[in-house]
């Protein structure tokens, strides 16, 4: 022990030989056989890291009746999938899942392992990193790697209530582990022609050896999937109450989108937390984001600034939200929003009555 710690300290900054550790591994989170989107997003990002390091992208699928997810993982970019499929793995529980994951990680020796920064991902990653042991960076929003020979994972995460970003390194341990935020990275297009290898692994604990029981899962009913929406019409404190959200809903309906909100509107009780965009809500990257009566505090911006097109409506021309907006309208939302809804409806019915459908135009 003493010997070892001396060695450690003398070469604190030198990198040990990690050549046994190769590959990027992604944990595929699922419930009832349905994968969480963050898993595919991480495969998309993991593919880039693996290509840069010239290694395999590996997926780890754990559950019951989840072989379809192994196929999907390949279609989303994995070269190899480790699949543990057993009744006792049906629901997520820390011990049986971490036992399987630890076994695979120790055998395969990936240099990087990524998890979604979800309740399940953090629960599992926290247990695994302590067992291994290795470093674990939390809640990353930017991932990159240094090329060979250092091959370091550059894991960056918001710090101090999102006011700063911190890049965190793990030089002296392998694998390098991180959890990464949902909605930040982009999944690659599904390619059913991609080829990959699936390797089965067995579950390591029998039901009798597991002390925890999931008695029930009550799915949230008001939970619509804000992160998956491609068009979001979001309202803030400027709305002044719950009623005006109807105006936003009408605009959202006209566009085929959903309604989002700032924390101020959620805290005021005007709309449910499932609608909140930002640091303590959801991170979204829709094709179109319309911010209405939202000032644009950093904690809101971090949740939406990667949207493809941003429209901001605010009567204060100095509102920070305009800095990230592609289109800015300085004016009273109570006049602009209904007019916009009308204009969209009119334009859409005009388009409908045209002979040539849009799809053919391209």
């Amino acid at each position: 022990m003493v010997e070892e710690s001396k060695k450690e300290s003398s070469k604190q900054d030198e990198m040990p030989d990690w050549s046994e550790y190769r590959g990027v591994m992604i944990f595929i989170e699922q419930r009832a056989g349905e994968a969480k989107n963050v898993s595919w997003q991480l495969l998309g990002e993991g593919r880039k890291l693996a290509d840069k390091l010239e290694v395999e992208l590996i997926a780890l699928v754990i559950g019951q009746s989840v072989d379809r997810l192994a196929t999907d993982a390949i279609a989303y970019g994995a070269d190899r999938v480790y699949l543990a499929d057993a009744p006792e793995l049906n629901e997520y529980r820390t011990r049986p899942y971490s036992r399987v994951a630890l076994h695979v990680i120790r055998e395969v020796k990936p240099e990087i392992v990524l998890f979604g920064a979800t309740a399940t991902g953090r629960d599992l990653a926290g247990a695994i990193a302590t067992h291994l042991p290795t470093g674990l960076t939390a809640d990353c929003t930017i991932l990159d790697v240094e090329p060979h020979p250092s091959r370091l994972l550059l894991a960056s995460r918001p710090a101090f209530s999102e006011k700063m970003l911190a890049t965190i390194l793990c030089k002296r341990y392998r694998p390098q582990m991180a959890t990464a935020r949902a909605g930040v990275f982009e999944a690659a297009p599904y390619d059913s022609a991609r080829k990959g290898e699936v390797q089965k692994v067995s579950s390591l604990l029998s039901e009798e050896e597991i002390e925890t029981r999931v008695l029930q899962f009550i799915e949230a009913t008001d939970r619509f999937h804000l992160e998956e929406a491609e068009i979001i019409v979001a309202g803030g404190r400027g709305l002044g109450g719950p009623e005006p959200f109807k105006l936003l809903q009408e605009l959202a309906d006209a566009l085929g989108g959903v309604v989002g909100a700032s924390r101020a509107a959620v805290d005021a009780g005007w709309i449910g937390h499932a609608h909140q965009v930002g640091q303590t809500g959801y991170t979204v990257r829709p094709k179109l984001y319309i911010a209405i009566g939202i000032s644009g505090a950093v904690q809101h911006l971090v949740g939406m600034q990667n949207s493809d097109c941003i429209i901001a409506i605010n009567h204060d021309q100095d509102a920070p939200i305009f800095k990230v907006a592609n289109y800015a309208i300085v004016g009273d939302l109570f006049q602009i929003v209904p007019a916009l809804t009308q204009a969209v409806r009119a334009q859409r019915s005009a388009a409908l009555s045209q002979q040539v459908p849009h799809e053919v135009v391209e």
Partner: protein
Amino acid sequence: MLHIVVCVKQVPDSREIRIDPKTNTLIRDGVPAIANFYDMHGLEEALRIKETLGAKVTVVCMGPPPAVKSLKQCISLGADEAVLITDRGFAGADTLATSYVLGLSIRKVAEVFGQVDIVFCGKQTLDGDTGQVGPGVACRLDLEQLTYVSKVEQIDVETGRITVNRLLEDGVEVVEAKLPVLITALKELNDVRRAPLPGMIRAARFQPTIWTTQDFPELDRSKIGLKGSPTIVAKTWVPESKQVSTEFVEGQTAEVIAGKLVAQLWKTELPVRFGW
């Protein structure tokens, strides 16, 4: 009687931290140090269990000497014992090194104050914000881990089983486990009480137990502090806001503005994409 340990970290209230716009550095002056608020929900739950089932509540904090302030606050609310784990050697710890020291400390708490049945941690802290210490401590002590708990439904002291609700992104999971367990607390767990006067009086005189590296004969120095931390913060920076060219859409009336904006939107790929 049950013995409950609550892990409490004293943190700068990061909500109050500002960035100096000239130097892009943190302005820490005047930022108050507080007991991490998720941890206080853990303490509150421990106190409620104490009131209904009978329990001893011990608070554990690793941090510099001023963290005594948070421990005294816990005492004023009704905790029975408080331990401060403090030593230069512990400084600079990441979550792996922190869970190592907290694990050892809770083992020692069990030796000194009695066998531990439940450990509460907060969901995450306001400063490091990782949420990794709870699972880490559970792992060190080989406890069942129940994270993101929004409600303690039931504790059956006879059978040693506990039922909790876990609040996840997509719903609520009801889980039953066997004691001893580690729970990470959400704010939904309860409303934190105010300190009663007798509690405040007790806290004023209270001296927490203090343990340093000397108190842990089995301590492996390569596993603590900066040296025992695999992760290092390589750099911090203030993100530049995305550079976009903002087009101000203007007009005399709302209708004109709306018309112009829609005309712009119809020049993009959006109508084709969404079949507008």
